[in-house]
């Protein structure tokens, strides 16, 4: 099949989903009302609650949800064949993905801008809030581990990446200094720092890491894991304007220029899929159901989006009718990004054997190869294109990692400061988060780690849908459009996590793994089991809440009859 056909199919699904399904839900079920005052207006505090244009929020939401996951998921999942991956991306986004993103924004918007902690406390039970917070902590740990692995494998597979990453960091820190300290013009700052980053991409091809550090160090997982987590450490403890934000600012130009021109390149080359449409039901990481459904997370559905929609976006919507373009619209754009990644993985290798050899080294190399090919259609030399693709991969992963470590620092302080005041210290919380993340990166096999992250991510999505269903029931609105996606995601993700945790711990108990693999398997297996237990308890609490709302509804109906 031709890549253009896949993109056109994506546009059609996005059009139908956005124009008909989402519009129907928005107008007939939620009954969004442009005259109703949103929390952004009602509680305008000039900081978090602030009415903002839907175009700005569209960009903000896209930037916040489009990390490395929509790219890596399809690259791994193509091992089952491109057809199942394509069907899941399109079907997942159409029936579940946008539903979750949009409904998370709506539920927060209709509940005075409350975030998930407050909503679970109010709609389900106080215990649900505490379990949700612990769940989120371990979920974030898996993000740090899975994305850390992406950074490390990319830095090892593509020797140009470290130099490009270093200069991007320097450019970002300089951007912070120029904007906030020297008060320089934003356009001048942007040009200077983006040019520095582009020089870094070129310099990476001239001075690859093995030339500077030697073969041993440039291939050492420990070195790049340390580099990634030291980077995150600075991002978590330094003032946010000095490190994390300006680096993200410069990185956003690099990433989105690459994506834009890459998609233009797909249209120019319009390659055919060279990998098989379907391989087999079960591969090394597991069977197609449930494992593929968690391997492709973002792009089809992702719990991370619900967190962004509820805690960030919902408090800035200036009009209720903006929830559809921002919540649902951006999800369909991300679906297109996942299709782009699927096209890369499915078309750049001549045979499954070539792809098999590449995937062993990690998804970063495949993505960079694809970016090089499609930017090559516009005249960029292949080595520069690969360097560009490698820094895009590193940036997409590490921008989310630094956010995650920063939040884990705050969560450590909140959850453990009652035990000892030492946990209030920013360095202690960050150190704990970094050590746990490094342990996962250094000891876990990356494909299992990715599946566990995907499982936790999808489980987060089903918990978001559970909250939405509880709210719809409490309001007496039709809830089937969130209830059935929740049931599907809940069963699928619990099955995926149980399967993966069981496989990991079975190897530990049977003595099949030793040394660092033993630590990695034990750690990942236990985290997986913890997430399953937390989700089951939350599911039970949610079920009790559903019954409560159903009883209230039937009592109200009986009273109305009387």
């Amino acid at each position, binding site marked *: 099949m031709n890549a253009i056909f896949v993109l056109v199919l994506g546009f059609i699904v996005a059009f139908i989903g956005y124009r008909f399904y989402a519009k129907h839900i928005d107008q007939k079920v939620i009954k969004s009302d442009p005259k109703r005052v949103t929390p952004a207006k009602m*509680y*305008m*505090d*000039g*900081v*978090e*609650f*602030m009415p*903002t*244009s839907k*175009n*700005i*929020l*569209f*960009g*903000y*939401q*896209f*930037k*916040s949800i489009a990390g490395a996951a929509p790219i890596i998921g399809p690259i791994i999942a193509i091992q089952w064949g491109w057809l199942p991956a394509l069907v899941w991306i399109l079907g997942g986004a159409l029936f579940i993905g946008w539903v979750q993103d949009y409904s998370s924004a709506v539920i927060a918007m209709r509940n005075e801008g*409350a*975030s*998930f*902690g*407050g909503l679970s*406390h109010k709609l389900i039970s106080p215990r649900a*809030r505490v379990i*949700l*917070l612990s769940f*989120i902590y371990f979920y974030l740990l898996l993000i740090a581990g899975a994305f850390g692995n992406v950074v490390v494998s990319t830095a090892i597979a593509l020797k140009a990446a470290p130099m490009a990453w270093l200069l991007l960091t320097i450019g970002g820190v300089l951007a912070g200094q120029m*904007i*906030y300290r020297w008060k320089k013009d*934003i356009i001048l700052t942007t040009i200077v720092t983006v040019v520095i980053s582009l020089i870094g991409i070129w310099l990476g091809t001239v001075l690859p890491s093995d030339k500077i550090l030697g073969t041993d160090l440039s291939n050492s997982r420990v070195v790049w894991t340390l580099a990634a987590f030291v980077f995150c450490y600075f991002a978590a403890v330094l*003032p*946010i*304007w000095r490190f994390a*934000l*300006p680096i*993200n*600012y410069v990185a*956003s*130009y690099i990433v*989105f220029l690459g994506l834009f021109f890459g998609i233009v390149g797909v249209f120019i080359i319009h390659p055919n899929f060279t990998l098989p449409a379907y391989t087999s039901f079960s591969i090394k990481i597991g069977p197609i159901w449930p494992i593929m459904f968690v391997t492709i997370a973002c792009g089809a559905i992702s719990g991370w989006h619900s*967190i*962004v929609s*509820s*805690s*960030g*976006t919902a408090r800035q919507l200036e009009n209720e009718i903006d929830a559809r373009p921002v919540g649902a619209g951006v999800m369909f754009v991300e679906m297109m990004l996942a299709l782009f990644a699927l096209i890369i993985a499915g078309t750049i290798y001549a045979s499954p054997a070539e792809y098999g050899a590449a995937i062993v080294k990690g998804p970063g190399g495949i993505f960079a190869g694809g970016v090089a090919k499609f930017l090559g259609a516009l005249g960029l030399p292949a080595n520069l294109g690969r360097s560009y693709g490698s820094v895009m991969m590193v940036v997409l992963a590490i921008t989310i990692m630094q956010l995650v470590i920063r*939040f884990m620092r*705050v*969560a450590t302080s*909140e*959850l453990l400061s009652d035990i000892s005041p030492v946990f209030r210290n920013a360095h202690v919380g960050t150190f704990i988060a970094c050590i746990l993340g490094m342990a996962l990166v250094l000891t876990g096999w990356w494909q299992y780690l990715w599946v566990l992250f995907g499982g936790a991510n999808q489980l987060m999505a089903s918990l978001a849908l559970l909250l939405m269903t509880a709210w719809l029931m409490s309001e007496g609105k039709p809830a089937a459009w969130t209830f059935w996606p929740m049931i599907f995601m809940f069963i699928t993700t619990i099955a995926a996590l149980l399967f993966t945790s069981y496989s990991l711990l079975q190897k530990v108990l049977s003595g099949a793994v030793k040394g660092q693999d033993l630590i990695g398997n034990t750690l990942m297996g236990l985290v997986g089991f913890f997430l399953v237990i937390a989700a089951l308890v939350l599911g039970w609490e949610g079920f009790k809440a559903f019954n409560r709302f159903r009883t209230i509804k039937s009592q109200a109906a009986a009273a109305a009859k009387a």
Partner: protein
Amino acid sequence: MGDEEKQKAGFFQAIKEFIYGVAAHDSARFALKSRASMEHLFILITMGDMLGVPILPPYYSLRLLPYVVPQISTWKRRMLREKDLTDALA
């Protein structure tokens, strides 16, 4: 301005806003959060005079008062709002 020109201007405005949203909106939000934290401190200093209870030497805090007054309504909303750990995620 004709309809077509208006449409064109609207389109470019939307693109401009989208790029701002992708690249800079997050930075602007965090800058506002930092400013809000400073404001909280500032208002704390002048709180005594606002309530009529002198806490610091009143002359200096009275001089600060005019700068504080415009911020009081949004400050109250920030301080009185119930907060949760998950707020910190975005």
